[in-house]
Structure formats: structure tokens, C-alpha cells
């Protein structure tokens, strides 16, 4: 059995790490699936989904690292008027930082619960906010 859930999240900062573990756990419980996997997938190209330890200090370090690897200023080609949009693309850094994080995470489900490691937290990483983001959570199993 596979169930697909959708979650909308409004962010409030240009770069922001949003903890998703509790949201995913609640959805897995709601699904009644006891054994299987849960996929957490962002539907955007300027966000990331990643897993790390849920600590404020690490969140700051991760954001700093993303900014260091993809600096705010650079000779980005994705910085020009896009006729099909009617606006200028000015978010190359958001796309490139998202590239480093990927768009999904996967966790096992055991006895109806998400099997987290002791330090693991799931993050939605906003890279071009504030915006309203849609996350798909796919629960598969028995």
C-alpha cells in the first residue's frame, strides 16, 4: 500500500532550516502503515531536503557552509530577464545551493514509527524565501 500526503509550509526567511521530523512522524502514524519506508520530497528547485542532527549550532554552520560554497555574488549566468516569466531570474544561488542538498530523504518504518537514528532530524531547507512550499510525503508498506 502506498499513500501520498501533501504538506504546505510557509517560510519566513531567505534561508531557513525547518525541522520536519515531527510532521513526518505524525503522517506515518496517520497512514497506519506498520512496516515500510517514507519518502520526503520537496516539489521545488530552490529548496533542499536533508538530514542532520537537530541542533541550532549545526543549522548555523550548514547555512554558513552553503553561503561559502555558493557565494552571494558571482558571475552567475542565471541572472537575466526571462521572457516566458516576465521577470528577471536572480536566484542562481538558490538553485545551486539546492543542488548541493538534493530534493528528498528516505526513512524506514518499523512498528508503525519512523526509524530515526538517535541524532537524526529531517530538514526542509528554504533557499529562496519567504515562500509557501509544498512537500510530498509518500508512505509505502504494509
Amino acid at each position, binding site marked *: 500500500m502506498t499513500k501520498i500526503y501533501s504538506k504546505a509550509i510557509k517560510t519566513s526567511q*531567505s534561508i531557513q532550516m525547518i525541522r520536519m521530523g515531527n510532521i513526518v512522524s505524525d503522517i506515518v502514524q496517520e497512514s497506519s502503515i506498520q512496516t515500510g519506508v517514507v519518502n520526503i520530497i520537496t516539489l521545488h528547485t530552490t529548496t533542499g531536503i536533508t538530514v542532520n542532527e537537530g541542533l541550532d549550532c549545526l543549522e548555523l554552520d550548514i547555512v554558513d557552509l552553503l553561503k561559502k560554497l555558493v557565494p552571494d555574488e558571482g558571475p552567475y549566468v542565471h541572472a537575466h530577464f526571462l521572457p516566458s516569466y*516576465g521577470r*528577471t531570474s536572480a536566484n542562481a544561488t538558490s538553485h545551486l545551493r539546492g543542488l548541493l542538498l538534493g530534493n528528498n530523504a528516505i526513512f524506514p518504518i518499523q512498528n508503525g514509527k519512523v526509524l530515526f537514528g538517535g541524532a537524526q532530524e529531517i530538514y526542509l531547507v528554504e533557499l529562496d524565501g*519567504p515562500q509557501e512550499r509544498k512537500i510530498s510525503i509518500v508512505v509505502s508498506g504494509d
Partner: protein
Amino acid sequence: MIIDVHAHPYFLKEMCGSEEQVKFRRDNFGLYKIALQDIDLFKRQIAAAGIDKVVLLPLDLSSTAGGTLMSNHDMKYLEDLAPDTFICFGSIDPNSKTALSDLRTLIKDFGLKGINFNPSSQHFFPNDKAILYPVYEIAQKYNVPICFHMGMSWEPNSLLQYANPLLLENVAKDFPDLKFSISHFGWPWVVESCILAMKYTNVYIDTSMLYFDSPREFFKYVFSSQIQPSWIDRSLSNKVLFGSNYPRIEQLRMREALEYAGFREETLHKILELNPIRFLNLQGE
């Protein structure tokens, strides 16, 4: 109090009544791929950019496109939804027979805070004495500022022949107590815009310009190649207004571009706060 003097409300969910209305706005404003967003999200974006108040601009395109991008009635409604954040202007179609009565309604009945004109999209010459001077007389009488979109416009039905800032010189001279802004820095006529703002005390310029490259790169080009930062610091620090042109670009990115343009801190303070307050008659607030 930091004020963005140039934003458009056309894609706020609360103000989008039907798909047909949204399509009209997309087609005539020329912004095709944009998700509708609610006022709560817009406020988050305003806060993230460190902005306190936003001037929202409608446009009456009755003669050239058969409708308004947003009516004055709706602008009044919108301002009432967030009076602490939104400063709503109105718009009239200068080519309409009801232009003057529409203007009086806009000012006296709706209490809107200014008038927005886009000569290039509304297809009029702003120095047309027969059509426009009665409008300017009323605006001057009630001390209502005007925003003129000059220079390059992305709106598909716009024509540059109506958009040279020098078309505003007679207006500046003949209505010395009428405050108006030249939007988009009048780009590419940046020097012309600076000349008018330097010569006439009632002329302001807003920074809502982005035509090539990223906001930071474009501001750097304009303020270091077309003109010099010192022109603004030394001669025009009291005449430049911060404007973003949201939603064609994010307010945060335009704010950052301004901060990186190389102006003195005192100049930035004037552009972001003191000049908009004076232009919008908000000194008492």
C-alpha cells in the same frame, strides 16, 4: 520606518477574484509565471527585507487594454486589510472622459495616498497640457504625489516614445508644488532623470530598475558607469526613493542591491526612510 515606494498588488490572493481577472493581469502586466500568494506571505517577505511599509500601485488601462489592473475601489479595500503596512495609490485613465471625476473620487472618497501613471502603457504624453494639466492642478491642490513610470517598461503594450523623463520637465516647472517621482530611475535615461531631480525641488527618482544581470550587478553598473555614487551622495541624496518593483523582483534582493551600491550610510538612510516619508507626506506618523 523603511518604505518601498514601488510595488504592485496584482497577484495577492485576496485581490484575485477570477481566473479571467488573473489572466488579464498576467497578459497586460506581462508577468506570466507567478504563483498567487496571500497577504500573510507577502508580509513575511516584506519583513524579511527589513521593510516597514509598501506603496502599492494600480493601473487603469481602460483605453489601451479595456480594463484596470486593479480598481481604485479595490485599492481602498486592500489598504484597509493592512493599514499599518500598505500605502495604496490610485490610478486614472487620462484618456477617459471621466478622468477628472475619477481623480476626485480617488482622492476625496477613497482617500488614496497618491496617483500612479504609466505613460508608456497608458499611451499618453505626460506634458499634454490639454489632457493632463487639469489632472495635475487637482493633484497639486490636494498635495497628492504622483508616481510616473518612465523609461523602459516590461509591460507588453508599452511604448518608449511616451517614457522619456524629459517629457516631465514642463510639468515640474509649471506645477512646482506637485511632488512626483520618476520610476525605474527613468532607465536608460538615468542622466536625464538625475538632471530633473537636481534642478526641480518637486522631482524625485525611485530605484525600481532591473533590466540586465542581477540586482547587485545592475545597480553597480548604473551607479558606477552611467553615473557616479557621488552624484547621489553629494547632489541627490534628498531626491532618491527606494522602490523594488515587486513582484517582478524580490524586495529583499533590491534592498541588498541598494546597500551594495556604494552610497554613504547617511544617503542610504535618506533613500530608505527620510525621502519616502517626505514624498508621501507621512511626517506626522
